[in-house]
């Protein structure tokens, strides 16, 4: 019986406490500094134009458990011609980031992406490079 009354007291105290709800579209919770969202291709600065660090070796595509990355390159080139990630299948496991030997991928903090069409979720290399606000540019050698 005492346990029942203790339970009632807990609920009553909770009734008078301020709720912990964050009213989502109007206020947002702070995201952790480590990225949890979409994957992004990193850029590097060599000479005048920024380039992708990615050399289109295809390791990320082979290791992806969902097989959602498509990588194609022309012969004798060191930049990917086609690099597509299908986000309707991606599970954000970070295997592609961990397995890249050139450190060419990173994860952003973008988590708000909705659309009415399925085509939106296939991101090309341009979208992947430009997504998010910050673009890392490094000097090489």
């Amino acid at each position, binding site marked *: 019986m005492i346990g029942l009354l203790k339970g*009632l007291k807990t*609920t009553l105290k*909770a*009734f008078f*406490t301020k*709720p912990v709800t964050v009213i989502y579209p109007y206020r947002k919770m702070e995201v952790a500094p480590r990225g949890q969202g979409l994957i992004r291709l990193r850029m590097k600065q060599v000479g005048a134009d920024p380039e992708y660090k990615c050399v289109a070796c295809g390791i990320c595509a082979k290791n992806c458990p969902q097989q959602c990355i498509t990588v194609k390159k022309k012969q004798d080139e060191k930049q990917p011609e086609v690099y597509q990630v299908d986000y309707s299948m991606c599970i954000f496991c970070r295997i592609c980031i961990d397995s890249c030997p050139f450190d060419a991928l990173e994860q952003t903090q973008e988590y708000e992406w909705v659309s009415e069409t399925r085509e939106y979720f296939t991101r090309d290399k341009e979208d992947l490079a430009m997504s998010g606000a910050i673009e890392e540019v490094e000097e090489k050698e």
Partner: protein
Amino acid sequence: MIWWQVLLWALLKLVIAVGFIFITALVLIYMLRKVMGHMQYRMGPRHHGPHGVFQTIFDAVKLLGKENIIPRDVDKWPYLWAPVIVFVPSLTIFAFLPFAENIVATNIEISLFFVFAILGISSISLIMAGWGSNNKYALLGGLRSAAQMMSYEIPLILSTVGVVIMAGSMNLTEIVRAQQNIYYIVPQALGFFIFMTSALAELNHTPFDIPEAESEIVAGFNIEYSGFRFASFFLAEFVNLFIVCALATLLFLGGWHPFTNPVYGVLFFLFKTYILIFITMWIRSTFPRFRIDQFMNFGWKVLLPLSLANIFVTGAVVLIVDNIRGL
């Protein structure tokens, strides 16, 4: 000239009663969602209207607009009439509840007895719903609900016998008048506890809501009902909650007691009723539910003997006190 005036007056009272019932059901549903939300560290509805007050109306309109599905092999008459019959006791009992000194639609000498007699009809509608749905889970839910309601009606009614002995009458208005000196919750604390517990079981309310538990038996007898028929069961549950809390207020908490002015009397009566409803929702947000055999045990082996003991002790004390006074 006079007969149509009588008819019009009766119709007006009917419209007021039905309107009051529906508004009460809507208010109670909103209150439940808000109270339960705040007790769980979250808010209830927020968007429609200030603090979400129009949410229930929009829900009701949404349920009205759903497709009218009748599964193929249902038993037509029980299936179709169960949502109608579930409302009948609720509407009828409103005719006998006094809200203030002379504000009662019909005042008969045995109104308490009549109220309990009609309240028993609601269990038949659940059996109809469970049987007519052609679904074994609905049947299980309906039969469990019927068993639960029938077994808890006995302690419910017997716990009020103590009040009747002390008040000397079954007329609800007389019972409230007899509580001038002391509200009956004090001498009849055990009776009040038994009444509230049996009432929660009678209404299929947590912690006794196995027949319609959403996570256990997938909504029990409600499972094949959609749209307005479901809304009908849902509203009837909340109207019955109001009725039972109103009865508890009249029998144990003194009804409208200090105020004989009708307006203040009605408001104070409603205030007390809403306090009891808040306590019901508080219990609903706190406790897990009983297993069916646990609460049948509780009803027959604990509440029934306690209520009989309550009658025995009350009768003995009243007899002794009357004899002492007579001496």
